[in-house]
């Protein structure tokens, strides 16, 4: 499984990648904002996108809106990892095309469950 991890914090990207490695995944690309995320997504094929919301330049929400508006043969599952956890935030993210949501701060179990859920590995 190839995963694109988009977050302006290199620390948060590392935390997410450490979790993915523990889940047995090894193939990653990273981006620090929405624009870089679109560039990476155009360059390669991904099975999962994990993105932050608040980032300088292009936000995660704009990134996913733009990605979903592009013609594509398949719909890449998107997991949003963000501190934005008010009810209105979650509604807005789901409308933009996010499939599932992890609220920061998170436990390794939570992110593991959500990754399994969006990639269809949930029991």
């Amino acid at each position, binding site marked *: 499984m190839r995963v694109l991890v988009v977050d302006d*914090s290199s*620390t*948060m990207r590392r*935390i997410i990648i450490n979790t993915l490695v523990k889940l047995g995944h090894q193939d990653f690309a990273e981006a620090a904002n929405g624009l870089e995320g679109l560039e990476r997504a155009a360059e390669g094929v991904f099975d999962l996108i994990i993105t932050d919301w608040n980032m300088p330049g292009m936000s995660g929400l704009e990134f996913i809106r733009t990605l979903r508006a592009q013609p594509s043969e398949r719909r890449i599952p998107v997991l949003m990892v963000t501190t934005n956890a008010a009810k209105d935030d979650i509604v807005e993210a789901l409308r933009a095309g996010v499939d599932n949501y992890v609220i*920061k*701060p*998170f436990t390794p179990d939570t992110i593991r469950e959500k990754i399994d859920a969006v990639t269809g590995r949930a029991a």
Partner: protein
Amino acid sequence: MDAQLVQCLTESTCEVFRTMVACDLEPGTPLLGEAAQPRSHVVGTVGFGGSRLGLVAFHGSLDAAREIAGRLLGISAGEVRGEIADAIGEVTNMIAGSFRTRMAGRGESWAISIPTVTVGTDFSITPRGYGQRAVLPFRMPNHGDLFVELLLTSR
């Protein structure tokens, strides 16, 4: 200072440290007004605006910041090099973001900024034009005191 704000910010800080840093902070008594001036080596700040306007600042020593960065990254504090600023920025972002969510449940509606981090040895923050100020002390076992500062602009 509204006691609800202080309580929500205390809860947010403890939650971030418990969940992401595997550390139970011991909150102390909040200091209100201009009395307290945390002297720290690493300061992360996140501004917020909307139904209220202000700033959340996280203060820690270099030793504490290195320990926090190491725990977040899954490496020892001794291996931490250039990651301190980014790690403290993300901790401040998570504290401010959780605080925003808690206050949203109490009718407040804010947007928060991207974090800014200052690392140095001889500086202090002098807020101008802020209406209210609270400094929340926390003890990080074996790593001294951390402070989370809340500044509110009066309108």
